Structure formats: structure tokens, C-alpha cells
């Protein structure tokens, strides 16, 4: 076995950059689409306990499907086929559980008395959502966002099996070719990205806690 990461990096800089870029664009699109779909749905579900239970059960079920299986299922759908569309859809479906659950919990766990008082003063339910439930639920919602980003970064690597040319490909090809440098390089870059993203988002998470909740006597 010949492990020479520096050599591998120098000889494949271009490919690494290309794969990293593909990886990032996939993760970014998946996260953006997920936010646009699941956050509003999560907010909507706070209005109906019945639908919340149903949708959350569905999200949980999807979350239980192994990622390789889900990617494979997507490919069998004629409209999607091999490639980005299938990958995106699978990633967005995975993000459903952490995003919806955290948006719902974040908003629902806001002190009922605060909402009762605001309602009693004549604040409309839209205003209560914007000015009270969202800001107070933001730390929990953001935690869901953080989990989603890190999780998507990891699962995106597996999309290489359905034709995505991203960092997962180093691992896949490395395994096929028994190229240790390649495997380690792929694994390392994905891990570093995931850890870095988690650390950065963890820092931001502290900042989104409303000031009044941080201030103590």
C-alpha cells in the first residue's frame, strides 16, 4: 500500500476542485430547496395538531429509509433517472424530518403565556408568529438547520452511486481500485467540510438566541 496524500493532491488538484464544487452545489441546492419547502410547512403545521402528527410520521418514515435505498428508488422514477434530480429529491426528503420537527418544536415550545398575553392585547396571529414565535423559536429552528446541513453534506457523498461526480466518488473509485490515498483523500475532505460547517453554524447558533434570553440578572 502506498499512501501519499500530498502527491495525490498535487496530481489531482483539478479533479478535487471539481468534485468539491459539485459537492457544494448539490448540498447548497438541497439545503436551499429544503428550507423553502419545509420551513413554511413546519410553520403551517403548528396550526393543526392533527396534520402535524401525520406529516411528522411521514417524515420519520422517510428518514428511516437507508440513503442508498432512497437514491436507488429515485433513479427508478422515469422522470428523474440517474443524476442530480434524483440526488436532490432524496436529499430534500431527508431534510424533511430535522427541519419540520425543529420548526414545529421551536414555535410550539414558545411560552404559552407570552402568546396568550400578546393575543389578549390584540396582536394578530400573523404578527404573533413574526414578532414572537419565530424569534423565540429561532434557536431551535436553527439547530435543525445545522443538523440538516451537516447531514446533507454526508449523504450527498453517497449520491456518487447514482452518477453525481462529487467527493464521494474518490471513496467509491478508491474502493474499486484499492487506491488508499484516494479513499482517504475523499473521506478526509468530506469530513473536514462537515466538521467545519458544523463548527461555523454552531457559532452562528449562539448569535441567533434573542438577546433578552441571554441576558441574566
Amino acid at each position, binding site marked *: 500500500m502506498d499512501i501519499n496524500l500530498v502527491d495525490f493532491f498535487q496530481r489531482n488538484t483539478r479533479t478535487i476542485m471539481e468534485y468539491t464544487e459539485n459537492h457544494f452545489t448539490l448540498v447548497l441546492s438541497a439545503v436551499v430547496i429544503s428550507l423553502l419547502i419545509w420551513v413554511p410547512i413546519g410553520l403551517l403545521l403548528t396550526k393543526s395538531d392533527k396534520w402535524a402528527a401525520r406529516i411528522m410520521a411521514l417524515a420519520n418514515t422517510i428518514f428511516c429509509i437507508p440513503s442508498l435505498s432512497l437514491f436507488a428508488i429515485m433513479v427508478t422514477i422515469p422522470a428523474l433517472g440517474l443524476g442530480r434530480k434524483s440526488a436532490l429529491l432524496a436529499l430534500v426528503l431527508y431534510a424533511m424530518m430535522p427541519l419540520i420537527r425543529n420548526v414545529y418544536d421551536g414555535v410550539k415550545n414558545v411560552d404559552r403565556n407570552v402568546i396568550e*398575553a400578546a393575543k389578549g392585547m390584540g*396582536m394578530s396571529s400573523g404578527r404573533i408568529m413574526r414578532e414572537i414565535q419565530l424569534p423565540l423559536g429561532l434557536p431551535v429552528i436553527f439547530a435543525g438547520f445545522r443538523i440538516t446541513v451537516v447531514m446533507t453534506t454526508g449523504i450527498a457523498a453517497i449520491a456518487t452511486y447514482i452518477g453525481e461526480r462529487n467527493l464521494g466518488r474518490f471513496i467509491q473509485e478508491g474502493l474499486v481500485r484499492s487506491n488508499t490515498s484516494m479513499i482517504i483523500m475523499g473521506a478526509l475532505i468530506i469530513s473536514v467540510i462537515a466538521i467545519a460547517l458544523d463548527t461555523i453554524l454552531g457559532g452562528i447558533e449562539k448569535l441567533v438566541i*434573542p438577546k*433578552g*434570553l441571554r441576558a441574566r*440578572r
Partner: protein
Amino acid sequence: MIELKNVTKQYPGQPHPAVDSLTLTVPEGEICVLVGPSGCGKSTTLRMINRMIEPSAGSITINGQSVMNNDPDHLRMGIGYVIQQIGLLPHRTIAENIAIVPRLYKWPKEKIVRRVDELLVMMGLDPEKTRSKYPSQLSGGQMQRVGVARAMAVDPPIMLMDEPFGAVDPIARTHLQDEFLRLQKEIRKTIVFVTHDINEAIKMGDKIAIFGEGKLVQFGTPEEVLTNPANEFVENFIGYDRIVKKLFLYQVQEAYRPAVCRLRPEEIGNALSKMLAEKAEVAFVLNEADKPCGYLTREELEQEETARDADGLQKLAARRSKAFVQTTTPLPDALSVMLEYDAEYVGVLKNGLLEGVMSFKDIRRHVYRREGE
């Protein structure tokens, strides 16, 4: 004026209505206290007035206008609302919390800033120190004050208060109650006030409405309710100390006697003869500046073993140097003074000068007379 007519709230699947055909009128500028054991429908009633709960039947009108004719949010903007848990927005400063309703009314910024400071001062909080703090930085009592200030922000003529002082310790509660009553004398709001504490009801209410199982059992002034409990339920709810509670309604000025025998320093030797001449049971000893410094009773003077010289009498009188109350002292406090100094009498002061005398018998007679009414 708030009028409830045959108001009923029936929750689906419940055998009995939460509020059952309730008719009640809250006159302008008065505090009407809804009181009763938990689950009696008092909070439900309060919350139907601002439509936090929609009544199943009956009509609720404010100054002749049915609350059902108004958009609920708009209706609530015009009614002050205070709840026990206060519900301050934890992510907003105190000033922002108080400014919520003014902002809903789109008041100009300067007007809001001025009003916030005004309210903080009114509630006994220092605007400089409080304004930009967050709720978590305040004590329970301070938060309650902010809650009341917030409800009064746009000076609504009506306030609904659901156990507004329930979440603070007894000392702070008494303080808040006293302050609020003083404030109410100036602002004269029409207030519906919910509590489960009969003592608070007696203290705060111009009128008391006693609830039991969704029904209004008795409605009247605290004195009426304490004098003539409508039935056993009310009697039990008030408790065995009904008459003692009633004492809280009265002040010394209603029960004392203005006629009083005064002893100047030089007259102390002839105390007994002066008292006999004035047919007085008790004589107050004054000092050079006419300030009372104690008293002697006829009984004491007539008993041979206590016959003493002027100096001895002075000392005897001085033992009761603190047995004095003001005309505005509540009767229970006066009674407490009597018990503390083992005294049958207390001197009644007004502006530091002796105004009259009150005996235990006077209190008894006063309460008995009111009972008989």
C-alpha cells in the same frame, strides 16, 4: 359599563356548562371582583369579555356595544389585559413590551417613548434604570408592575385582570394591591378582576361576584356579601372569620368617640375627680406640647392598691404611650394595637393631636350595628 346577559359557555363533551346563564353588570369606574374556587367559571367569564373565549349563548356589551360586533383583535386592543403569568415578551426590552399596544395603534415614536416613561414612573419604576432591561433582569414584583403598565399603555377605559398579583410573594402582593387601589382612585377604570382569594376580593372590590360551578351565587358590595352571605356555599367560602374579615372594611373614624377627657400635666393629681366630673372611663395624659403620651382608666384609679402619687400615675399612663391609632387606621390594625398593649382603649390621633378614644366595646358595637342592617 360592561353588561353580561344570560351568558353561557358550554364546552362540547362536558356535562355541565363552564358558565351557566350568567347575568352581571359592572358599573363604570368600579372594580368588580370575580371570586370563587378553581373551576367555577370566573376566568372563563373574564376571557369571554375580550373574546379570548367565545360565549356559546347570551350577550356581552361594553357601553351598549356588543363585543361580537367588533373584530376580536381590534376589540382586545381597546381593553387592558393582565394575566397572572404576565407573559412579558422575553426577547423585548421593558420599553418595547410596554409599547406593544401603542405600536398596534401606530402611535408616533416620540409619543410612545414619552408614554412608556410616564407609565414606568406611575408604576413606581425608574425609567432610566428599567427602560432598556429585559424581563429576565427584573424581580417578580417589578414584572407584575410592567404587566400592569403594559395593559394601561393606551389608557383603555376597561381592564381585565386575571389574578394579576397572584405570582408574587405576600408582602409584594399587599404592596401592589395598595398601590393599585391608590392609582385606581385617579384613573377610575372599569375593571373586572379575577381572584380565588376572598381576602383580595374584599380588599380590591367595589363589588364582589361570588361564583360557584359556573353560576353567580352572590353579587354585591364586600359589606353586603360579608353581612348577608346568600347561602351556605358563600358562608363556607368566606370562612369562619367572616366578622373579622368584615373589620377590614372599616376604619377607626367610623367607630371612635370624639368625647375624651384630657389631663394636662398639672391636672394629673386630680385625675379621678376630673374623670368623675366628666363621666369619663378613661383620661389621656398630655405633655407640655399637648401631645398625648398615655392614658389612665377610672378602674385603675379607683382601685386602692394602684393609688399613687402624680409621678406614679405618669409612669402608669406612659405604659400605654404607643396605644394610639390614626383615624384612617383599619379596624383590624386598631384591634391588633389593643391586643399588643393589653389595652381596653386606644387613643385616636389626627395630625398628631388627640382626636378621640375608641374602646373594644366601640368596635363591637360598630360591627354589631352594621351586622343588624
